[in-house]
């Protein structure tokens, strides 16, 4: 990204504003030496100073807590503190590996990710294609704005709205009672929970996810459609042979990134509904860590489960990016 400024425009005067005696080209980075470091420090200290508050906050609430994952190797209690807690090596991990509840949470997480890949992932694509076929710009903008809106609502709000619509005391139950039927409560049913969370995710985020596909659709050359139409391709044939191949790079990239993120299924959504549905269906890795560590006081085992998730997640993301780069797409941490 330094390319666009790679041509020296003017000599920089020192920050103090004194005479620019020596040429101080900041872009001459080929000859690193002690003196150039010092002169660059003298020139750029204000820039560095401006980064300090942000790095301080990241340090305090990101880097240092990351180190504190070491309690996964201790038998930690807040009273003893890190210094006095006994070292147990891999003991906590060994315990977890033999713990059915842990594997249950892993299984739920992976099942929900797989389910959402099939049922959530296509929703924004379908929505984008549908909206892209709306020709009147005003109508299209109105619909677009309506479907993004829920993305900006909190999960608490979304789950509460769902509860009011399809919960035991919600609108559908109320209407069913009016019609003399026995009401159903979809908010507390463990059997349908996986469908419920997917519908919630679609309601909240499909409109938002659509944006990137709309952008991709707008880059497809209209001449392709015209040529295909002249050659006699029907509407559906054009969709299949032009639109979907045009979206392919974005679809592949997002699919790979989603796989890299397989252990994240949306913590807040699940912690909010775990009580109502029960751990059987709603326990995912994140909620397991939370309940184990903070509610039952098994700090170290909870941290071990969290670290397990973090490390596996990191590996998945790195592999996913590697694959994305191999396929010629941009990953999330492309070289800047």
């Amino acid at each position, binding site marked *: *990204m*330094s390319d666009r*400024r790679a041509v020296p*425009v*003017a000599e*920089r*005067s020192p920050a103090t504003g004194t005479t620019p005696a020596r040429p101080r080209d*900041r872009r001459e980075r080929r000859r690193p030496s002690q003196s150039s*470091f010092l002169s660059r420090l003298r020139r*750029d200290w*204000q*820039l560095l100073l*401006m*980064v300090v*508050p*942000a*790095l301080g906050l*990241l340090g305090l*609430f990101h880097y240092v*807590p*990351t*180190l*504190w*994952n070491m309690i996964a190797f201790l038998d930690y209690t*807040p009273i003893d503190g890190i210094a006095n807690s006994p070292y147990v090596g891999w003991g906590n991990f060994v315990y977890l590996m033999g713990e059915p509840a842990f594997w249950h949470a892993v299984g739920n997480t992976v099942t929900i990710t797989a389910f959402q890949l099939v049922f959530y992932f296509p929703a924004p694509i379908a*929505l984008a294609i*549908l909206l892209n076929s709306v020709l009147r710009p005003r109508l299209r903008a109105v*619909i677009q*704005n309506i*479907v*993004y*809106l829920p993305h900006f609502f*909190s*999960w*608490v*709000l979304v*789950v509460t*709205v769902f509860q*009011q619509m399809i919960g035991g005391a919600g*609108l559908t139950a*109320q209407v069913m009672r009016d019609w003399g039927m026995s009401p159903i409560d979809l908010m507390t049913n463990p059997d349908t929970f996986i469908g419920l969370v997917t519908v919630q995710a679609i*309601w909240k985020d499909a409109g938002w996810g659509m944006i*990137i596909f709309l952008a991709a659709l*707008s880059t497809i050359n*209209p001449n392709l*459609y*015209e040529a295909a*139409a002249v050659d006699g391709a029907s*509407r559906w044939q054009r969709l299949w042979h032009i639109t979907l191949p045009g979206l392919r790079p974005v679809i592949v990239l997002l699919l790979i990134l989603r796989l890299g993120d397989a252990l994240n299924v949306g*913590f807040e959504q699940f*912690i*909010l509904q775990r009580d109502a549905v029960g751990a059987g269906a709603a326990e995912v890795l994140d909620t397991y860590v*939370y309940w184990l560590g903070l509610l039952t006081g098994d*700090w170290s085992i*909870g941290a071990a489960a*969290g670290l397990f*998730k*973090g490390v596996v997640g*990191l590996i998945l993301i790195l592999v996913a990016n590697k694959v994305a780069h191999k396929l010629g797409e941009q990953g999330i941490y492309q070289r*800047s």
Partner: protein
Amino acid sequence: MSTVTQTSLRPVWDEEPSLLGKIGKALALALVTLAVLFPLYIVVLTSISSAQAINEAGGLVIVPNGFSFDAYAEVLGGGVVLKALTVSIGITVVGTALSLSVTAMAAYGLSRPGSLLHRPLLFAVLITFLFGPGIIPSYIMVYSLGLLDSYASLILPAAISAFNLVVLRAFFMAIPGEVIESARIEGATDFQIFRKIVLPLSKAALAVIGLFYAVAYWNAFFNALLYLNDSGKWPLQLVLRTYILQGQPMQTASGVMDASGLGLSAVPVTSVRMAVLVLAMIPVVLIYPFIQRHFIKGVIIGAVKG
């Protein structure tokens, strides 16, 4: 997308869809739109319905049938919701101001090509995308800083979003280098350039990022659940979760209100609950039209340059 013209919206090569196709598309669009709007309509309508309308409907109101703003008077007259509302507004205002200023400074500090250490520092920011510290270590950190049950615990741990920082940096980098170089030749320091040139040129971008932060602070609930034992300090989202989603008895202006609605003569518990939902929703809905276009631009820049 701008291939459509004033005279004919449909390109010449595109055949007119069949009547069935048109109906199907209209139905699909109506379904998608109503799926979003209908629940919101029910929530808002019930919150402003009279006690009689709610009784006749047996709970949530579908058809307007008499209005009353008593539910809002009830929750805004005192009690936990009013308190939580002030907490949420305070957290959002203070948090956004802090996050935006710290993020903007860092984004500028990392936006000058070739500046000292900017690559490793940028890397240090980006790495937060890849690995989060986890719930328990974060909790221990807040605990050992003595920040449990403080408002600071709702702001500081989430104050910097690497995503927002990268997006803002991309905006700053798009400012023509000549503008900044010429100021430098005039003898301006980086502080001065940031304050007098970069910030005024980036008002729209700063507004976008500020609103990103504001929405995040307003919507945050888990930090409060984790760090605040004192329910008197709860923000609105946690109040929403505890008293509406979980249905625990709630303190309002005229007393404690539980699921049966007993203890309150005039205002039905249903409309009070819907009023709390509306209060949690309103700030987002109000800023949304002003910002949604920029949000989308920001997302695409973030996706492209991230």
